C-alpha cells in the first residue's frame, strides 16, 4: 500500500500495485480532513474476466458538503478504452465505486485508471438560496466559480448562472492505476491446466515451458505412469523427481511400482473433496511435479524398506499414519527449496 500524505488537507492513496498516483489541482490548506482513492485490477483465469475496481472515499466531515465521485477507465496496452464508467455518492454513503469488467486475452496487458473527485452538493442552507461551501474547497481549484466570496460560504442563486457555472469541485483530482499482464497462451491443454492453478489458489503458477509431454530416456517409468492428471498429454515432471526415483530404486534394490505421480489441481481437488477437505487450499507436491506414490502391496516390510530408500535419496516421506500401508508417498520438495516437516524428514 502506498500512501501519500500531502502537507495540505487532502490525502489520497493508492493501495494497488503497481499503481501510479498522480495528483493534480491546486489545493489550499483548510481543515484536517481526508479523501482517499484506490484502484485495483484482477484477472480470474477460470473465466478470463478482468475486473477493474476504483473507489473514492471521504471522511465523515466531508460527506456533509461533498459527494464522493469516481471515474474508472479500463485500457489496453495501446491506451484504447475498453470500458469506462463513473459513480457518485448521492446518498451520503461516504464513498463511490465503479466496477468494470472485460474478457481478457492471453498475452495482453491491461490497465485500469481511477480518477477520484469530490462533487460539491449544492444546498440551500443559508437564507437567500446560497450555496454553502463548508470547507472552502472552491478556493483550491480552478473551477468556473466566478464569485466565491467569504471564507466558508460563497453566495449565489441557483438560477444565477454567472455566480456558479458548475457545482463540481474537483478536490485535488487524483489518478491511480493497476496493471495486469496475462501470460501468453500455449495453444493446447496446458492453457486449461494453468488456469486451474490460478482458479484453485495453488501457490505454483506454471507457464507453458513448465510442462512436458514425454520423459527422458533414462527415466525408470513411462510418461503415462508418471502423469496421473486429467490431461494425458501434459504434466509437470521435475528433474529432481527423475533423479530421486532412480536413487530410491537403487537404494531399495528392486523394481518400484508407481501408483500416482503428477496431478493437475482439479484432480487433486477432486481427490481431496471426496475425502471431505473444506476451507483449506490444497498445495500437494503432486501438483508441483516432484512427488510420487509407490505401491507396497500392503506389505509392512516393503513399506519400511521403500520409505527408508526414499529418505536416503533425499526425499520427504509421508508417515504411514497418514498415507496408509498401501503406498509410500515420496517427494523432492527440498530440491525446490521447500523444507519438509521433521516428521517427514530423515
Amino acid at each position: 500500500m502506498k500512501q501519500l500524505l500531502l502537507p495540505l488537507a487532502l490525502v489520497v492513496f493508492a493501495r494497488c500495485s503497481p499503481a501510479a498516483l498522480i495528483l493534480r489541482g491546486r489545493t489550499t490548506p483548510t481543515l484536517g480532513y481526508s479523501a482517499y482513492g484506490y484502484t485495483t485490477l484482477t484477472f480470474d483465469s477460470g473465466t478470463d474476466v478482468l475486473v477493474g475496481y476504483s473507489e473514492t472515499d471521504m471522511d465523515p466531515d466531508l460527506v456533509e458538503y461533498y459527494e464522493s465521485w469516481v471515474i474508472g477507465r479500463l485500457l489496453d496496452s495501446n491506451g484504447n478504452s475498453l470500458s469506462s464508467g463513473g459513480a457518485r455518492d448521492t446518498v451520503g454513503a461516504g464513498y463511490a465505486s465503479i466496477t468494470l469488467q472485460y474478457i481478457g486475452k492471453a498475452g495482453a496487458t491491461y490497465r485500469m485508471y481511477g480518477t477520484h473527485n469530490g462533487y460539491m452538493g449544492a444546498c440551500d442552507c443559508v437564507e437567500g438560496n446560497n450555496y454553502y461551501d463548508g470547507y472552502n474547497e472552491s478556493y483550491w481549484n480552478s473551477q468556473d466559480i466566478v464569485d466565491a466570496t467569504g471564507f466558508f460560504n460563497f453566495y449565489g442563486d441557483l438560477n444565477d448562472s454567472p455566480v456558479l457555472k458548475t457545482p463540481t469541485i474537483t478536490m485535488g483530482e487524483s489518478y491511480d492505476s493497476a496493471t495486469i499482464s496475462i501470460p501468453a497462451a500455449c495453444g493446447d491443454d496446458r492453457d486449461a491446466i494453468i488456469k486451474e492453478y490460478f482458479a484453485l489458489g495453488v501457490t505454483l503458477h506454471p507457464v507453458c515451458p513448465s510442462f512436458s509431454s514425454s520423459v527422458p530416456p533414462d527415466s525408470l517409468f513411462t510418461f503415462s505412469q508418471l502423469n496421473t492428471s486429467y490431461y494425458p498429454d501434459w504434466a509437470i515432471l521435475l528433474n529432481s523427481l527423475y533423479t530421486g526415483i532412480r536413487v530410491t530404486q537403487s537404494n531399495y534394490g528392486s523394481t518400484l511400482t508407481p501408483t500416482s505421480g503428477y496431478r493437475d489441481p482439479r484432480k487433486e481437488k477432486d481427490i481431496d473433496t471426496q475425502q471431505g477437505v473444506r476451507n483449506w487450499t490444497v498445495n500437494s507436491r503432486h501438483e508441483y511435479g516432484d512427488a510420487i506414490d509407490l505401491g507396497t502391496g500392503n506389505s509392512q516390510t516393503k513399506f519400511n524398506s521403500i520409505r527408508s530408500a526414499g529418505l536416503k535419496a533425499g526425499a520427504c516421506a509421508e508417515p504411514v499414519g497418514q498415507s496408509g500401508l498401501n503406498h509410500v508417498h515420496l517427494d523432492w520438495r527440498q530440491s525446490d527449496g521447500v523444507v519438509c516437516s521433521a516428521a517427514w524428514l530423515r
Partner: protein
Amino acid sequence: MRIEKFVLAVAFVFSVVSCLGQPTILAVLPSSVKSNLNSENWGDRANAMLALAQEDSTDSREALITLLDKETEVANRAYLRFGGTDAVYGESYGEYLGQLTDLVMKIADNPTFPRAIHVLARSSCEPDSYFARWLAMHGETILPDIVRLSENGIDIDRRCAAGVLGEMLSNDSERKLILSQTARAKAKMILIRGLKDSTSWVKDASLDSLTKSGDPTDIAALKEFMLNNREKQQEDQEFLRKKADKAISSIRARAASMSISK
C-alpha cells in the same frame, strides 16, 4: 466479627489467586479462532493453527499444544478405522499435521511449556525420522510416554516407540545423553519384546534399533528370533531373518571395536 472478615478476605484472595492460575485460553483467544479450534472440519482447525502461529503469546502456544494433542487422537482414530488419515481427510491433512508438529517442536524448546514435549512424544512417529531422533534426545523426560506408546494397541505407535528407544540407547552408549540403569533396562526390554510383536514392522523397527544399540546380551534373543519367527509371507520372513543376522553382526563388530579401544 473480625475473624469472619479475615476469613472472607482470605477466601476472596484465594479465589482470585486460583482464578489467575487457571488456563485462560478460551478467555483470551479471538472467538473466530476458538470456534475454528473446536470445528469438526480439519480445514478450520488448520486455519486456526495458522492464526495461532502468528500470535506470540502464552495462550496461543498452549492452544497449539492442545491442538496437537487433539489431532493425535483424530489421526489415531483414522488409522484404526481407515488405515490412515489420507483415506478419510485427504493428503493435505498430513501436511497440516506436519506443520503443527513442527510448531509444537519449536514451543517445546522453551522450558515454559513443559507439556509440549509430552504431547509430542505421545503423537506417532516414523522410527527412522528426524522427529524420532529429536524425541530420543529428550531421554528419560519422555520415557514414560514412549513406554506407554510401546504398550498400546496401535501398531504404528509401538513401531515409533521401538525407533525412539533404539535411538535413545544409541545416544546413551555414545554419551550423547545419560540414561539411568533402570531406564536402559526398560528400553532394552521393550526392544526385545518388540521381536515378538504381532506385526512385522514393529519387529522390523526393533531389529533396526538393536542393530544400532544392542549389546552381546541381546544376541541370544536375536538367534532365537532367527530360528522361530514366522511371517505370513515367506518374503517377509526371509527379510526379517536377514535383518536379525545383520543385527548380530553389528553387535559383535561393535563389541570387538570396544574391547580393542579398551
